[in-house]
C-alpha cells in the first residue's frame, strides 16, 4: 500500500479568548507556518480539507469563510468535515490513497469564546429524544464519570492525578493554556460543575487553529520532506443512543486497537483527545499506560480548541517523532458525547 506521512504541523498559541481576531485571522498564521516549515506553497497542494463547526460561529456555511485564509487562485480542490479536523486528515488520507492527490493540507479551527459552548455542544445530540432536554456536554461527561466510579474503575485520586499531570506537562508546551494545579484539598473543595466533575476536571474553553500537511512517499522524495509515517489510521463510532452504550468502556477504541494489532508496550508516545479528567483515566487504562505517561503535551485539559484538538493530538505525536525523541506514537481523536466516535492513528519513524 502507498506510504503516506505527516510532513508538517503548526498550531497557534491557544487562548481562552482570542478577542477581536476572527476565524480567518486565526487560520492564516498556521497555514502560512506549515507551508513555510515544509518549504511548500499552495501550488504544491493537491487537496485541502478543513474541520470546523458552524454552530461555534453561529452562522450557516461559516466554514466557507475559512477559505479566505488560504490561496484559492488558481482554483483548488477542497472539502470540509463538520467535525474535528482529525477527520479532515482521514478524508485527505483516503483521497491520497485513491490517487486523487499527492500532497494535502489539513486545517481545523474553533473559536468557542463567543457562544455558550456547553449549550452549543448539546445540539449535536439526537434531535428528537435527547437534544430537547438540553443536557450539556459536562452533564453527559458527568454521567460517564459516575458510571465509571460506580463500576469501580475510577477514583477521585485518579482524576486528580490526571489534572496534576496535565498541568505539569502543559508547562513544557508553549501553546498550552496555563491551568491551575490545585492541591488535593483544593481539588476536593472544588466547585462541582456536574457531579462528580469539578471545574478542574473540565478542559478550558479555547480559541485557536492548527494546520498539517501530509504527503506520499514519492512527493516526500521529490520535495525533500522528512515524513513521519501514518502506519495505521482508522475510526469507529458507537451508538448515538447513550442508553445503548456501556459508558464505562470505549468500545470503538478497543476494537480499533485489536484491528491495528500493535504492541501497546512498544509505543513511545500517546496523545489522546480527552476533554475531561475521567476520560484521561479511561483511555490510559485502555492504552495500558500510566496517567502520567499519556498526553506529554498536557492534552486538551491545557487547551481544547474545538474541531482542532483531535488533530492536535496527532500533531503533538508527530512533533515528538519528528524531533526523534520517540520512534512510535499513538494518537487518539474523539467526536460526539462521552467518546462516542473515535479515531486512532499509529505513527512511526523510519528507523
Amino acid at each position, binding site marked *: 500500500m502507498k506510504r503516506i506521512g505527516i510532513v508538517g504541523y503548526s498550531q497557534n498559541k491557544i487562548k481562552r479568548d482570542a478577542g*477581536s481576531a476572527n476565524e480567518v485571522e486565526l487560520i492564516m498564521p498556521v497555514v502560512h507556518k506549515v507551508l513555510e516549515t515544509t518549504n511548500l506553497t499552495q501550488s504544491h497542494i493537491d487537496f485541502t480539507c478543513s474541520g470546523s463547526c458552524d454552530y461555534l460561529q453561529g452562522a450557516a456555511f461559516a466554514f466557507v469563510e475559512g477559505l479566505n485564509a488560504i490561496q484559492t487562485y488558481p482554483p483548488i480542490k477542497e472539502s470540509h468535515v463538520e467535525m474535528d479536523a482529525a477527520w479532515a486528515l482521514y478524508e485527505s488520507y483516503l483521497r491520497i490513497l485513491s490517487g486523487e492527490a499527492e500532497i494535502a493540507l489539513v486545517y481545523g479551527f474553533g473559536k468557542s469564546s463567543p*457562544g455558550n459552548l456547553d449549550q*452549543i455542544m448539546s445540539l449535536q445530540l439526537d434531535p428528537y429524544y435527547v437534544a430537547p432536554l438540553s443536557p450539556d456536554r459536562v452533564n453527559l461527561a458527568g454521567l460517564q464519570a459516575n458510571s465509571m466510579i460506580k463500576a469501580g474503575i475510577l477514583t477521585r485520586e485518579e482524576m486528580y492525578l490526571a489534572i496534576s499531570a496535565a498541568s505539569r506537562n502543559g508547562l513544557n508546551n508553549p501553546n498550552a493554556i496555563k491551568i491551575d494545579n490545585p492541591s488535593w484539598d483544593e481539588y476536593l473543595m472544588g466547585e462541582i460543575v456536574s457531579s462528580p466533575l469539578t471545574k478542574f476536571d473540565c478542559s478550558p474553553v479555547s480559541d485557536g487553529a492548527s494546520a498539517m500537511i501530509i504527503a506520499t512517499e514519492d512527493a516526500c522524495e521529490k520535495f525533500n520532506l522528512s515524513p513521519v509515517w501514518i502506519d495505521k489510521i482508522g475510526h469507529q463510532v458507537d451508538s448515538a443512543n447513550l442508553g445503548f452504550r456501556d459508558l464505562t468502556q470505549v468500545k470503538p477504541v478497543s476494537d480499533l486497537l485489536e484491528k491495528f494489532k500493535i504492541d501497546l508496550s512498544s509505543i513511545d508516545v500517546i496523545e489522546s483527545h480527552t476533554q475531561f479528567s475521567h476520560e484521561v483515566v479511561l483511555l490510559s487504562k485502555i492504552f495500558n499506560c500510566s496517567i502520567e505517561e499519556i498526553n506529554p503535551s498536557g492534552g486538551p485539559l491545557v487547551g481544547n480548541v474545538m474541531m482542532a484538538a483531535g488533530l492536535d493530538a496527532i500533531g503533538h505525536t508527530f512533533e515528538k517523532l519528528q524531533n526523534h525523541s520517540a520512534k512510535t506514537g499513538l494518537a487518539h481523536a474523539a467526536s460526539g458525547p462521552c467518546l462516542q466516535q473515535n479515531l486512532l492513528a499509529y505513527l512511526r519513524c523510519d528507523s
Partner: protein
Amino acid sequence: MDKEQEKDYFESLISLEYNFTAGSATTRFLEAIAKGNIVGQKCPKCGAVYVPPRGSCPRDGVPTLEEIQLPDYGCIESFTVVHIPIPGNPIEPPFVSAMIRLDGANISFLHLIQEIALEDIRIGMRVKAVWKPETEWTTSLENIKWFKPTGEVDINPESLKFISS
C-alpha cells in the same frame, strides 16, 4: 382551542446567543464608516482592493494590511429589482438592490439604488452615496441611505473584471 387539543407534538425552540466579533480588519472598517470614511484594504500580492475588508485576500491567502481610502462613488456592477416583500425588511417593494463597485475597489458590495425610475437603471451606471445626517451615523454601512445616479457617462462593464493582470 380545539385545534390546540388536536396537537400530537410539541414545539421545542432552541436559541443560542453569541458575542459576535467582526475581526480586526472589519472592525477598522466599521470604525471608519462611523466617521463617514470608507476604508478598503489592498492585497500586497495581486494589488486587489477589498471593501469591506475581511483582513485577507482570498485569492492569494495573505493578510491585507495596507489600508486604502476609497471615495463614496462608483458604478453599478449588477442589480436586481425586488418585487416580493422580504419579512422583516422595512423597505417597500419594488426597490432595487445593486452591487456597487466603488472607484478604486476590486470587489462590490450590496446596497440600494434610489432617486431614479426603475426602468432607467443600467449596469455600468455612475452612482454616488447619499448619506444619513451625521448625527445618525453608527458603525454601519447603513450610514449610507442609498446610492443615486450622478448623471456622468456610464462605465464599460467589460472594465469591471476583478483584476486586469
